[in-house]
């Protein structure tokens, strides 16, 4: 029985199996050759490396802190301008708002669900092929997974909030948004059942035609 790649790579780290593995390695030409191969792979990758740039970490931290300020100021400015414009009786903004309100009153009801518990809340809205998942407060339950049953590709777009990592996997979408507030849009192909989990808890399911959305519960933070 030969050593597996992981054991060979981790020789030198220590541990219980180290002595046994080392003894085997000393006597096994096959495993010695494999160790050389693994080393060759690592070395060959270094052939395409460029030198790492010198970065001032102070600048990066400052960038991270500054980036929010202009967005907040711009948002506040836009809100103030819109409020002033809407206050004028003959303003086009006021007419536009009225038109939007009229349209919403006559629009069919969109499946939507909101649940809150322990200070954490999530709103989920399904319309046509788009599922919107909106966190209204800092969610602390863990990773959010949006899965479907048909093996179709899901496309995810962050629509607002703090920037977080996400990954599109064959089984669905995983959002690493623990401790943050953000909203997402996920394009779900028609005829696909949608399942949303926060941490390990299923909080939302739909039928295959996106009807009958049902909130099951939200993990308490």
């Amino acid at each position, binding site marked *: 029985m030969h050593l*597996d*790649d*992981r054991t060979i*790579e981790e020789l030198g780290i220590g541990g219980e199996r180290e002595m046994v593995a080392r003894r085997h390695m000393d006597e096994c030409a096959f495993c010695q050759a494999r160790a050389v*191969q*693994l080393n060759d*792979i*690592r070395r*060959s*990758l270094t*052939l*395409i*490396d*460029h*030198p*790492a*740039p010198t*970065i001032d*970490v*102070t600048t*990066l*931290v*400052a*960038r*991270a*802190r500054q*980036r*929010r300020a202009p967005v907040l100021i711009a948002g506040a400015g836009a809100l103030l301008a819109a409020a002033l414009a809407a206050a004028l009786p003959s303003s086009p903004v006021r007419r536009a708002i009225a038109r939007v309100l009229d349209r919403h009153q006559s629009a069919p009801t969109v499946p939507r669900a909101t649940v809150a518990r322990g200070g954490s809340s999530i709103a989920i809205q399904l319309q046509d092929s788009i599922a919107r998942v909106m966190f209204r407060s800092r969610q602390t339950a863990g990773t959010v997974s949006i899965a479907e049953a048909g093996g179709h590709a899901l496309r995810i777009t962050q629509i607002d909030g*703090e*920037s*977080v*990592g*996400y*990954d599109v*996997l*064959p*089984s669905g979408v*995983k959002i*690493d948004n*623990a*401790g*943050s507030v953000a909203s997402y849009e996920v394009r779900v192909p028609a005829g696909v059942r949608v399942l949303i989990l926060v941490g390990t808890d299923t909080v939302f399911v739909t039928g295959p035609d996106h009807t009958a959305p049902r909130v099951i519960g939200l993990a308490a933070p």
Partner: protein
Amino acid sequence: MSGPTRSARSIFDENFPWVFRYVDRMIGDAAVAADIAQETFVRLYRRREPPDDLRAWLATVAHNLVRDDRRRQARRARLLAARAPEHTMADPPPDPDARIGDADEGQAVRRALAALSEREQRLLLLRSEGLSYRELGLILGLNEASVGTLLARARAAFQEALRAP
């Protein structure tokens, strides 16, 4: 404004080199890789607290940024192609002397990497940066046993592509 905390600095010192190297190996452009690696850390510092699995988080965010960059590049290429004049000259035939450059080992490594699937590339590159099977499983949504199997396949495919003429 106060400077970075000691932990922000030590996180950066410990992780920036491998994040940059990972992205650089993925895309082959040091300038873009530097931008993406920096943006990854800007996003980290915008969080109120570091994620539980820091290295897995960094690798995932860096990869998302690589994907975004590739999407932007593809869109730009499409726009340029659409705006190109109708009567463009055909590509010139390959220069026989260019094959001498192909012999360069670095180019061969890049070609071999490009021959792998995206998942194989990520497994191979992240493992070479010392990420554990558990971290690779977290990043790629795999269990540890599958990581070993898929990593072995990725290495075999890489070696085969490297040997290919």
